C-alpha cells in the first residue's frame, strides 16, 4: 500500500505523545503502582469539594451542589450509556428513560409507601433493568439506526406516560421525595456534601463493575459485536443475549443515577427527563471517546462543568453541543480520549453499523489518501 510508510512513521512518532506514554506505562505498571493511582484518585475525589477549589471551578454557584448535579450525575449516566454505545456499539437515544424510571420508582415508593431510600434505589435499578429488557427484547434485532429511533421513541413514551398518569403526579410531578436514611453517621438533609460522597461511591462502584465487565468474556463479546456482528455470531457469540445484557446493565446504571438524583432533588416532574438530556449524555460519551472509561468521565465532566463555570455558555449550551457533535464526527470521530482499539476500528470504517450507502470512494478519497489524511 502506498500509505504504509506514512502510517508506520505516524505510529513511531505516536509513542512520544504524552497520552500514549501514560498508556504504555499503565499497561506495564505493577499492581502496587496501579493501586496507588486508584487511591490517589479517590483521595482527590474526596477533597474535590474543598472551597478553595470551588472558588476557581464554580464561582457563581455552590461547588458541592454542582459536583453532585450536573457533574456527578452526568458522569454516572455517561458510564451507563458507555456500556451500550461505547462497549456494545448500539446507539441509544432514550437513555434518559432509565434515569426517569429510577427517579420515579424512588419517588413513588418513597412518598406513597414510605419505603426507605436503600430499598427503593434497588427497586429502581431492578425496574430500570426490567424495562431495558422489555424494550430491548423486541427491538435489539433491528439494525442499529432503527434502534436509535426506537429508543428515542421509548424515552418520549416514558416521559409522556409520566405526564399523563395521575397516580405518579401527572404533570405536577412528585414532591417531598424522602432523603436517604443516615449511613456511617452521615445525615442526608439539605447539605449537598453527603450526596456528593454518595455519588462518588456509586461512581467508584460502577467504574469497577464496568472495568471488570470489559475485561471479562462479556466485554470481549461486546467488542466483537461492535466490530462485526455477523462475524461474532458466526464465531458462536450469542449476539442477541449479549446485546440485551448490555442494554440491561446500561439501564441499571441509569436507574441508579435516577434514584440518587431524585433523593437529592426532593422534587421530580416529567420535564426533569427531557430528550435533550439523552442527547447531552450522548454528546458526553462521544466527546470523551466512546468505549474508554477515563475518556467518557472526562467528556461528562467537561459537558457538565463548562456551562456552570462559564455562564454565558449556558444559554448556548445545546447549540454548542450540536456543533461539537457535527465537528467531532467530521474531524475526530473517536473522541478526545479514545481507547486505541476503538480508534482503530473507527478509522478502518468498521465499528457498529457499517458504512453509509453511496460511499463509493471518489478520486480524492482513495484508501491510501484516507490513511494519510487521518494520520
Amino acid at each position: 500500500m502506498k500509505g504504509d510508510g506514512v502510517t508506520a512513521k505516524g505510529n513511531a512518532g505516536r509513542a512520544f505523545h504524552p497520552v500514549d506514554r501514560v498508556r504504555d506505562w499503565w499497561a506495564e505498571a505493577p499492581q502496587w503502582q496501579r493501586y496507588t493511582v486508584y487511591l490517589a484518585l479517590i483521595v482527590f475525589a474526596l477533597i474535590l469539594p474543598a472551597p478553595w477549589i470551588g472558588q476557581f471551578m464554580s464561582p457563581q454557584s455552590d461547588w458541592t451542589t454542582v459536583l453532585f448535579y450536573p457533574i456527578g450525575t452526568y458522569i454516572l449516566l455517561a458510564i451507563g450509556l458507555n456500556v451500550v454505545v461505547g462497549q456494545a456499539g448500539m446507539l441509544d437515544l432514550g437513555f434518559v428513560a432509565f434515569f426517569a424510571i429510577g427517579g420515579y420508582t424512588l419517588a413513588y415508593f418513597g412518598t406513597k409507601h414510605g419505603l426507605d431510600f436503600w430499598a427503593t434505589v434497588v427497586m429502581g435499578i431492578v425496574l430500570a433493568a426490567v424495562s431495558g429488557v422489555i424494550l430491548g427484547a423486541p427491538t435489539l434485532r433491528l439494525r442499529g439506526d432503527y434502534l436509535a429511533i426506537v429508543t428515542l421513541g421509548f424515552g418520549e413514551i416514558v416521559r409522556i406516560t409520566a405526564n399523563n398518569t395521575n397516580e405518579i403526579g401527572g404533570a405536577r410531578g412528585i414532591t417531598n421525595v424522602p432523603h436517604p436514611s443516615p449511613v456511617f453517621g452521615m445525615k442526608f438533609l439539605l447539605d449537598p456534601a453527603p450526596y456528593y460522597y454518595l455519588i462518588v461511591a456509586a461512581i467508584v462502584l460502577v467504574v469497577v463493575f464496568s472495568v471488570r465487565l470489559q475485561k471479562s468474556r462479556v466485554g470481549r463479546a461486546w467488542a466483537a459485536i461492535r466490530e462485526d456482528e455477523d462475524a461474532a455470531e458466526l464465531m458462536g457469540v450469542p449476539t442477541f443475549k449479549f446485546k440485551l445484557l448490555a442494554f440491561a446493565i446500561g439501564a441499571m446504571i441509569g436507574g441508579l443515577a435516577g434514584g440518587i438524583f431524585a433523593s437529592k432533588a426532593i422534587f421530580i416532574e416529567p420535564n426533569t427527563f427531557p430528550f435533550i438530556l439523552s442527547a447531552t449524555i450522548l454528546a458526553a460519551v462521544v466527546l470523551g471517546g466512546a468505549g474508554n472509561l477515563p475518556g467518557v468521565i472526562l467528556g461528562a465532566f467537561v459537558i457538565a462543568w463548562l456551562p456552570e463555570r462559564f455562564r454565558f455558555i449556558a444559554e448556548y449550551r445545546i447549540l454548542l453541543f450540536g456543533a461539537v457533535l457535527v465537528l467531532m464526527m467530521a474531524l475526530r470521530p473517536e473522541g478526545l480520549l479514545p481507547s486505541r482499539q476503538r480508534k482503530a476500528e473507527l478509522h478502518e470504517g468498521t465499528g457498529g453499523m457499517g458504512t453509509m450507502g453511496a460511499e463509493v470512494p471518489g478520486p480524492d478519497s482513495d484508501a491510501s489518501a484516507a490513511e494519510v489524511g487521518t494520520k
Partner: protein
Amino acid sequence: MLQELQNQFLTSTVGGLVIGSIYALVALGYTMVYGVLRLINFAHSEIFMIGTFASLVTLTTIAPTAPLGGFAMIGVLILIVIISAAVSGASAMLLELIAYRPLRKKGATRLAALISAIGASLFLQELFGLEVINWLTGKPGRNQQSAPRFVDRDTVFTIGNADIRTDHILVVIGAIIVMVILDQFVSRTKLGRGIRATAQDPEAAVLMGVSIDNIVRVTFLLGGAMAGVAAAFYVMEIENTDYRVGFVLGIKAFTAAVLGGIGNLRGALMGGIVLGLVENWGAIFLGSEWKDVIAFVILVAVLMFRPTGILGESLQRARA
C-alpha cells in the same frame, strides 16, 4: 352512545387524513435519503421547522387582513408552498454539504453519520430558538409564533356530522398533487433514474456514469422541498409554529416512512395516512394526550413484526 362514537369517528378520520398527508410529505424526505445513503437524516425535522418559518414570514409579509377565498387564496397558498419548498430544499442541501458530505468522503460509519445528524438537528433547533426566530419576527424566539389565517375555513360539505372544510381539501389535494409530481420525477426523468440506481447499487451506478455527489445533492433537495411543502400546509392548517415543532412531527414522519417501508415513495404516502388515521382513532378511546404514545407504539410494533413495512423496501434492495 354509538351515534356519538360514529360522529367522533368521522371527525377523527378527517383530522387523520389531513395530518396524515403532512406526515406523508415529511416522510418522503426520510425515505429518499435513507434509500440513497442508508442514513436516518435526523435533522430532516429541522428542515421542516425551517419551512414553517419560511411560510410564516411570507404570510406575515403579505399580511392578509381577512381570510381569502377563490383564486387569491389558491395564489397565496401556491406562493408560500413555493417559497417554503425553496428555502427548505436549499437548507437540506446545505445540511448535506456541511454535516454529511465530509463524513461520506472519509467513509465514516453510519453511527458517526447518525450522531452528526443529531448534532445538526440540535444545532439548527437552538440556532432558531436563540437567534433566527427573533431576528425574523421580532418576537422572543422561544415562544410559539402564530400565523395569520388566509384560508377561508368554510364548510364545503358534511359527511355525517364531520365538516369537510376548504383547508382540509386543500391539504389533501395539494399533498397528492405534489406526491404525484415527485413520483413521476423519480420514475421518468434521468435524474430520477440516477436516484433509483444509486439506491439499488451505488458501485454499479458509479460505473454506469452516475455522479453520486450530484445524486445525493438532488435527493436532499427533493426531500427538503417536500418537507417545505408539508411545512406550508402545516402553517395553513395549524396556524402556529415554534422552534421545536419538528421534533415530534419528525419522529412521526419517520414512523410513517418505516410503516410504509423505508425507501419506498408510495409507502411513505400510505404510511403517513395510516399513521394519521390510527393516531386520531386511538385518541377517541384514550384521549388526545396519548396520541404521541400511540404513534411510538406503532413504530415499535411495526419494527417488531414487519420491519420492511407494509409495502416493503423497494427503492433499494433490502440489505442488512
